[in-house]
């Protein structure tokens, strides 16, 4: 089984002209219903082979539906069309010394629509919240072809039932997101990333101790030695070639950062300041290679309670060993695992599967060929999911198969 067993893309494409009110997308969906043509919703294409195989025969292109609709820096709120990329948002907000602190794994070419449809987040979720916490409002076109607008453009809102949360993470199976309103933050005065090598033997204690420290980092990730060498470069790696590394990101005023650094050094010994580009290298280490799918490295995540992170980490080290890049977020107990050889054996799969179950870990596929996905991914549909899908997308015309049925 190799990565080249990713399913081929559908051949027909719908491209809806950009309109302010989503009616063109509505018409495309209605036409798809009439011709019984299930659609795959596509942004930049960076998520196409992540997740479950989608049984579509045509695509609904959202990448051309892009651009910032409204940006009021004084409100720290930005509204953009779903085809706008994260890099485009970063560039627009940086001019006003602001940012959208959402750093999902994958590339900055990913679109807002994809990020929120897949509810993706990265290390900054620790400090700034996940996708569902950052989004304020959405416009979307349902699988009935009808445009809806839910939430709003203000930072607190409880008007009506929370369809924003329902649509975020729905993988395009309820509606095609057309516009997103997000809350921004001011760029921090200082933004410092420290790298702390941790001896494998003391890892479990180090994780427990870390949780007791009086510090408030906005991101903390534990990288396996092989991943640390890739992210930090060989210079750093050669000094601690076999050690996992903690990356700790501190923001705020100078006094606050210095005090936290001191607390970390009192506990762990010396820390090294590293360039903040390490975070981009880290997030691009896990993900689908759109340019060369056969080179995509299989990726999944495994989680358990945060207090059990040490055991989860060890289970993955024991199972995947030197083949894997492991990347754990301390605050939610989730370890992201990228298998560094594109070729994955059935033996490894069965070891992962059985080990996962015996450890009580929850395994979720990220970038995997469909057969591997079916074997590894633990997620199941919940009791009301089918009825919710029928309410929004009764003909199963949008992204059929993308969510557990």
């Amino acid at each position, binding site marked *: 089984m190799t990565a080249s067993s990713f399913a081929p893309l559908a051949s027909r494409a719908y491209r809806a002209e950009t309109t302010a009110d989503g009616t063109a997308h509505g018409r495309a969906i209605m036409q798809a219903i009439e011709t019984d043509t299930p659609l795959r919703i596509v942004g930049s294409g960076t998520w196409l082979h992540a997740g479950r195989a989608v049984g579509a025969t045509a695509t609904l292109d959202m990448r051309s539906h892009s651009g910032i609709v409204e940006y009021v820096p004084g409100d720290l709120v930005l509204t953009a069309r779903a085809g706008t990329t994260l890099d485009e948002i970063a560039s627009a907000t940086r001019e006003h010394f602001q940012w959208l602190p959402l750093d999902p794994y994958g590339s900055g070419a990913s679109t807002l629509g994809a990020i929120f449809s897949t509810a993706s987040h990265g290390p900054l979720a620790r400090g700034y919240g996940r996708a569902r916490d950052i989004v304020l409002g959405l416009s979307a076109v*349902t699988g009935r072809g*009808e445009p809806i607008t839910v939430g709003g453009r203000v930072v607190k809102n409880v008007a009506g*039932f929370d369809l924003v949360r329902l649509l975020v993470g729905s993988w395009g199976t309820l509606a095609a997101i057309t516009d997103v309103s997000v809350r921004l933050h001011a760029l921090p005065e200082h933004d410092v990333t420290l790298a702390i090598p941790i001896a494998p033997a003391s890892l479990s204690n180090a994780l427990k101790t870390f949780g007791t420290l009086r510090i408030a980092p906005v991101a903390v990730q534990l990288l396996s030695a092989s991943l640390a060498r890739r992210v930090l470069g060989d210079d750093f790696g050669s000094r601690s070639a076999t050690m996992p590394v903690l990356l700790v990101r501190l923001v705020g005023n100078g006094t606050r950062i210095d005090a936290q650094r001191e607390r970390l050094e009192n506990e762990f010994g010396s820390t090294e300041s590293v360039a903040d580009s390490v975070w981009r290298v880290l997030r691009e280490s896990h993900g689908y290679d759109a340019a060369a799918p056969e080179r995509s490295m299989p990726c999944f995540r495994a989680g358990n309670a945060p207090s059990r992170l040490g055991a989860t980490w060890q289970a993955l080290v024991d199972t995947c060993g030197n083949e894997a890049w492991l990347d754990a977020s301390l605050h939610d107990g989730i370890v992201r695992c990228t298998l560094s050889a594109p070729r994955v054996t059935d033996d490894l799969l069965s070891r992962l599967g059985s080990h996962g179950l015996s450890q009580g870990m929850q395994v979720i596929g990220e970038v995997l060929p469909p057969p591997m996905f079916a074997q590894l991914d633990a997620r199941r549909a919940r009791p009301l999911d089918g009825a919710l899908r029928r309410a929004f997308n009764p003909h199963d015309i949008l992204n059929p198969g993308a969510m*557990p049925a």
Partner: protein
Amino acid sequence: MLHSDLAAIVGPRWIRHERSELIPFDADALPGYRKLPSLAVFPGTREELVAVVRTLARHNAPFVPRGAGTGLSGGALADNVVLLGLNRLNRIIDIDADNRLAHVEPGVVNARLTRAASPYGLHYAPDPSSQTACTIGGNVAENAGGPHCLKYGVTLNHVAAVNVVLPDGSEIMLGDPYGETDGYDTMGLFVGSEGCFGVATDVWVRLVTLPEAVRTLLADFDSIEAAANAVSRIVASGIVPAALEMMDRATVLAVEASIYAAGYPRDAAAILLCEVDGLEAGLQDDVDTISAICRSAGARDVKLAGTDAERARLWQGRKKAFGAMGRVAPALVVQDAVVPRTKLPQILAAIDEIGRRHNVRVCNVFHAGDGNLHPNIPYDATDPLESERVHAAMKEVMAACISAGGTITGEHGVGLDKLDYMSSLFTDNSLAMMCAVRDVFDPNRRANPGKVVPVHSCREWHATATALA
């Protein structure tokens, strides 16, 4: 008979059916709405709760879940239907300090949870002003906020899982206390559903580390506009205060005349109560920056609370402000609109003009940091002319907030009170999808009927699906 079937579950002591016994439950914290339930039932355990809901299902009986009845949208009112009181389910089942998670029954009082978490160096962050009485279940139903949600987030950001008994009596777990959720974010959908989707039997909430240090400032201004400008500049500075509250002179006078008097300056046009918290190191820098901003925006004075007692007093004045309105007049209408922060000066000026034009007393006390307004109008509800002016003024205020790009409710919920504004905010399609979602949870529309979404917005989907086939 419904009454006897319910009595068999909870015991006759925990059913109320006489009119005199039901009157205490005919309103929530808004004096303007009174609806008498047909009867009220108070289960004492989760097993009793589930059995009660199943019995209601067997009788096809509508019902309204209710916590402490502190709501401000008329959401927990039962109009000749069964009132289901959750306040007896008040156990804190477990606090998992290692994972910062608390497992509670829905009737646990918000402030009590924070007190119980404090020996672990933790607290429950969402702090609605009613927190000494309101319950976690109610907080979940309304997606409650509070002053400290500016930094810490609202209830939605703190709920990890909810076990729900659906109106048909079946149980469903939404979210996952220790892992990622399978399927759709139905837990996110349930938070803020105002009792229309079912009843929470268990709630798992995240706890947050108590901040190492706190500083509370009081700044007073000669004009509301100056205070509003200070708010914008504090937000733009990059500092995220833990809380940033504003009160106008009318409110300050009401508070200072009451038992909640906090020592606010009576001659200020507006005051700002600003709190920063976090690590001790660097906190003074934030205080200095905020003080400088306030002064350059025109603050007459900026005072720092010196002791815990002073801090508590400053907060009591703010949190009990609605209660203090009772000294001014016996009835109160209060709104909960949220506007973009950059529109605050313009909206506050508009509210002032509307109040003068209709000859009503508007008292503004609100969460300035996130643009969540609370214009309060105390009035005499027995005076029909004043009542008419008050309601006309509030309609205009709401219209101004909506046209400024705001929303009709930031934390109190729609309930009954804001039902009529829903179609100003949402299109027919959007309202129809809200109805459709509700029908997934409660196909017979028995849970808190008539709230949140206007009934006329609900379509019959069968007809639409047939047309498309």
